């Protein structure tokens, strides 16, 4: 058979130990982009490791432990044989020396982090436009109804109302699906409770009034003003949520401890809710003026804040508390007429007492105001804790 190949060919003997100190520069590993070696590199410094360190400065500065340097060196084509030229047993030992000789990390830890995604104007315009749609749909419906008063029959007007409500629902769905109000984990059953609360805002007062006076006595008129005002408030809600998210993120990037971050975020949340209130109040007032509701908008304001905070929590991946708060408000609102009705049974008269007291003190609107207001305050308190946690801000 053949004898093992003769490694006597001079060119074919990499095994030859390179003891000559002038060699290192020649085999100095380069990046694969071949750059012309300068004269200085050819001559080589007295300390070969120093030039290696200089050459792989980036790698050594980034490295978090010697193994990372070893992996990087090997990716550049450095082998144990090359390491032997630096008087090291293997690449690991060489990497350890490089790691140890790297001057203490002077760079800012945050320096390597890229800045957050810049303001995406297009996307922002898109979701702003979407957020305006529910309000526009409601306004258009109200306008059509107002204009066609006395022109069209009741059936047609009802059709217009239904179509308008459908459009508003679709628009709401679309704008909750993207932008700052998007809930990454879904919102559980919040939608169901939201619908109940909205219908109560429209029809609830009248229903309660009829029940308390011995009814219900048949069809009753709703007060659509809160609906219009709330639909128009979707856009400011989206913007407030957006501002809150952006500022919380900014705070997050700069903070070194969790407590510090929490303390910084709570005022932000309050500011966002206040800002939203500032937008909601005039909208509800205007809607009231336009549709001539004449009712106190306290319940609607409370409902708006409740919705806003619940959605803000859901948008930060915490849908449960909002859903619970909405469910609680629903329960209270449903409980009031139920108590009044059950008080009609013999022996259960005292059950109606609290409702009676409430209504005599604040009118029929007081029930929903109390329900939504209580839920909103509770939820806001919870949000002040929940949203001051850093983990709530990872997914937004």
């Amino acid at each position, binding site marked *: 058979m053949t004898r093992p190949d003769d490694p006597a060919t001079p060119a074919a003997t990499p095994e030859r130990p390179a003891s000559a100190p002038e060699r290192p520069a020649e085999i100095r590993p380069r990046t694969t*982009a071949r750059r012309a070696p300068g004269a200085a590199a050819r001559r080589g410094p007295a300390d070969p490791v120093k030039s290696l360190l200089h050459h792989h400065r980036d790698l050594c500065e980034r490295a978090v432990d010697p193994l990372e340097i070893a*992996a990087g060196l090997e990716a550049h084509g450095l082998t144990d044989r090359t390491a032997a030229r630096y008087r090291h047993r293997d690449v690991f030992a060489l990497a350890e020396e490089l790691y140890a000789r790297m001057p203490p990390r002077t760079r800012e830890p945050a320096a390597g982090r890229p800045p957050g995604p810049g303001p995406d104007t297009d996307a922002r315009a898109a979701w702003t436009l979407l957020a305006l749609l529910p309000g526009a749909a409601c306004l258009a419906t109200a306008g059509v109804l107002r204009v066609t008063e006395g022109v069209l029959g009741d059936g047609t007007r009802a059709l217009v109302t239904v179509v308008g409500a459908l459009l508003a629902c679709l628009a709401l769905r679309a704008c909750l699906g993207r932008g700052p109000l998007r809930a990454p984990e879904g919102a559980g059953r919040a939608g169901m409770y939201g619908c109940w609360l909205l219908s109560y805002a429209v029809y609830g007062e009248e229903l309660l009034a009829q029940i308390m006076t011995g009814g219900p006595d048949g069809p009753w008129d709703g007060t659509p003003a809160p609906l219009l005002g709330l639909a128009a408030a979707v856009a400011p809600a989206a913007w407030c949520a957006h501002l809150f998210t952006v500022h919380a993120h900014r705070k997050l990037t700069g903070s070194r401890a969790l407590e510090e971050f929490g303390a910084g975020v709570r005022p932000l949340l309050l500011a966002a809710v206040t800002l939203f209130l500032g937008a909601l109040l005039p909208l509800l007032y205007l809607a009231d003026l336009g549709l001539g509701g004449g009712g106190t908008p306290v319940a609607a304001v409370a409902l708006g804040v409740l919705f806003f905070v619940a959605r803000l929590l859901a948008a930060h991946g915490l849908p449960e508390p909002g859903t619970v708060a909405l469910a609680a408000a629903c329960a209270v609102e449903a409980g009031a007429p139920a108590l009044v009705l059950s008080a009609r049974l013999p022996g259960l008269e005292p059950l109606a007492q609290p409702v009676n007291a409430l209504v005599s003190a604040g009118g029929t609107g007081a029930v929903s105001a109390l329900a939504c207001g209580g839920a909103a305050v509770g939820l806001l308190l919870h949000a002040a804790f929940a949203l001051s946690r850093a983990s709530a801000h990872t997914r937004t």
Partner: protein
Amino acid sequence: MRIGLLTDGGYPYATGESRLWCDRLVRGLPQHEFDLFALSRSAHQEDQGWVRLPPQVSRVRTAPLWTPEDGTLRGSGERGLLARLVTGGEQSYGRRDRRRFTEHLTALAGAICTPDEAGTEAGEGPGAELFTEGLYGLAELARERGGLHLALRSEATVRILETASRARGTGRTVQNATVPDHLAFAAELERALRPLSLDWYDQESLGAVDLCHAASGGAAALPGLLAKRFFGVPLLVTEHGVPLRAHYLAASGTPYGTPVRALLAGFHGRLTTEVYRQAAIVTPGNTHVRRWQQRCGADPAKQRTVYPGMAAERFGQVGEDAERFGAAGGSDDAGGPGTLVWVGRIEPAKDLIALLHAFAEVRRAEPGARLRVFGAPAEGDEATTYLAHCEALAAQLFPDEATGAHTEGVSPVTFEEIGGPEVPDLVEAYGAGGVIVLSSVVEGFPVSLVEAMFCGRATVSTDVGAVVEVIGGTGLVVPPRNPKALADACVALLRDPERRARLGAAARARALELFTVEQNLAAFRGIYLELMSHTPVRREADTVDAHGDPLPFATPPEARLLGHWTQPGPHLRPQPDPEPDPSAAVPHWAAPGARLPDRPGEPEPQHTREPEPEGVCAVAAGPAGDGDA
């Protein structure tokens, strides 16, 4: 025997890593039953479907390691009835589970944040103990209560991580971690620990297999670790690349800050060490991987180098012709003996420029020489640009030459893609050359070199990666980035047909002995038997008859013995104790082929490199090796 094959982003997915190797293993050992436990890497991979599975695969369980688009991961978190009714959402742990979670995560985070003191052996010391305590504690919690992924994304996790990173003894980098760093690391930790939440850990799934074979380290080996922990199933880990090294290379491309990378490195380092410590046998694919494993705490006594097998049949004709007629392949008129051939995927790491410069020198000495470069550029713009650059350089260095005044000239250097009319397949490409050249500056396991060896061709390669280990003296090796040396070696071979033939025959013999599929299969067959001889299969069903009465002699009396009868520990070591141990005699005949590549006394090649990340077999399918499966 029932083997649980654990893969991560590989077999049985059609686009997986090292799927060819797994496929050959499963098909090559039909006497065993295989249960596949596959983790998928992306939705794209899942969409690509599976390869066709042979009948010996009895069951396939898959689980995603990726997060769906909408960022949600619905798990089996425990919920109360009322909570479910009201919110429709999930609820996290109760108080007792929360305390368990906190305790275990604190241990895990402490181990990750605190590096071992200098001089501590990998796998020893308080850090490793803390890590195992935390890891298995979390695994047990996830197995009993589920919902680990939710807990790992909670504020409590971030708080624990913060506390751990501020503790005494942590490095300065980790101490500098900010809140976003902790959040990023918590998210990564949740991803990495996702295998803990799988529903594979019951008596019907991983509890039912006799042996877990992890096709790679890292995430794939994690279920194996837990199977060993919960059911005592022995674990065999095969690594063709070093996951830890791949992690380091990948991590430098991520946008994470230094603290996150330090924490991740800590986690992966500890996990790798634990995998090597728990594995009954670790089979590195080459010496480079072997050295990394030893560096990470693998016990040399547990290591068996098993070279990746490659299908040698299709090279058989060319190889036999070479043996019969000499290296030129007899009646070869395409290139003939004066032709140098380079085969591979064209990318900057292959250093074709040095090859062209070397060939210029060769032409000076041997004016009739030709160089044929076969291969397509690798993916990416960089490789395409590099190819264009090389072609331009070739055109500059070697103008077209014609034999007479009236004939059309051709360049002595050609760039060809395999699959064209002239060279329909890879084998032809190797057959076209008298000498195969490999000029890489960076190389993992050099697949094209092994193929050239199968073809019985003399080779000249640069001293990178696992080249020396593979070639083993049956070809010439020159330093990388040295065109002069490369040229000298090529000229020496071109002028000496006899030596060429001799080297080619030796190379073919060596390749047929070490790098065939059969040797790979034989090694694993032996290793399976060796492992089984230490952990005998005991199934309840085998010890009772059809009526449920116990069968006599179903369980040997030795099984009742206390002590180390079934423990792999000391018996796997190559018999250091002079005392004759009756049970120690088993593995040595059971695995004759297993130790073949690393017999004691065989000098360890000095420098090696892991194969390219997609695994050896995927590389084998590289330029035109599609008929390889």
